[in-house]
């Protein structure tokens, strides 16, 4: 098993790999989302107390998990950027921010439309909701900071510092329901306790989470390809991946 993983740390060899993974995972995400929606919207039973309003869980929980996880991955790539000064790690961090922001926005939006019928309000300044809103602002801050700095390498370092500092917010979101007395309910799923919901509900959430993973990786890889081309223009190697044929326009 002698694979030279460092080969893929250079944009040259990473670009075609990113393309094929993006397509494969995009297709897988569509399949999983289709299955997850069938389970979540049709097969899973109506909740005894929340009626069918609870079905928002199948997008709300996966989106909220992804928003937090993508932030940690972005902070990880940011740390690699500061530590090793590698270009691709900064590009990965740059590519993750918009999808992370979208996931945070989806978590807040679907949470609002779930909160209204169950708690009687679209929004409350509850610890979990407020810290998730801060997460969205951190993503938007990283994106805005990048667009404000002209030199991409300086922008990489500035965004990396902001992303790493902001990472303290993620455990705050995660533990907020335990630390404070929140309107938001506790964890839906625990690895240690017995499931408190129907198996089909749990299965729906897990399948939709897998779909969200595949979707996020797929779209981030496609975005990192665009970023590589934008930022490496002038590097001779890019010429080799250019296809001049018509009808093969990816």
């Amino acid at each position, binding site marked *: 098993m002698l694979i030279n993983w460092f080969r893929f740390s250079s944009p040259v060899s990473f670009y075609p790999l990113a393309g094929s993974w993006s397509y494969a995972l995009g297709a897988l995400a569509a399949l999983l989302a289709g299955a997850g929606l069938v389970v979540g919207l049709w097969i899973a039973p109506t909740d005894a107390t929340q009626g069918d309003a609870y079905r928002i869980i199948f997008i709300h929980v996966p989106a909220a998990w992804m928003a937090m996880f993508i932030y940690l991955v972005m902070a990880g790539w940011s740390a690699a950027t500061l530590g090793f000064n590698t270009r691709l790690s900064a590009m990965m961090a740059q590519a993750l921010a918009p999808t992370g922001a979208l996931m945070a926005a989806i978590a807040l939006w679907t949470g609002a439309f779930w909160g209204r019928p169950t708690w009687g309000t679209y929004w409350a300044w509850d610890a979990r909701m407020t810290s998730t809103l801060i997460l969205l602002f951190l993503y938007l801050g990283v994106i805005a900071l990048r667009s404000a700095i002209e030199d991409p390498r300086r922008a990489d370092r500035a965004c990396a510092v902001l992303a790493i500092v902001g990472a303290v917010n993620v455990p705050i979101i995660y533990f907020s329901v335990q630390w404070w007395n929140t309107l938001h309910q506790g964890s839906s799923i625990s690895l240690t306790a017995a499931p408190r919901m129907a198996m089909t509900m749990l299965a729906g959430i897990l399948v939709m989470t897998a779909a969200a993973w595949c979707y996020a990786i797929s779209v981030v890889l496609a975005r990192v390809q665009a970023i590589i081309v934008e930022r490496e223009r002038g590097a001779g190697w890019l010429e080799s991946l250019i296809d*001049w044929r018509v009808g093969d326009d990816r």
Partner: protein
Amino acid sequence: MADFFAMGGYAWYVWMAYGAVALALAVEIAAVRARRRRALDELRMSLDPVAAPRRMERVEESR
């Protein structure tokens, strides 16, 4: 079928949540693909300013 769309009286909440997510993901996918295509078009322009616009025209025609 009407029962399904009624979502036990919670249609507004459930479909506003699911609809917005479907729209948001569709927009993100389209935006990322357009960004990648634009980056490649600009790269072709910088490599061959004569051939690149001709190719773009042919791509337009083939659509």
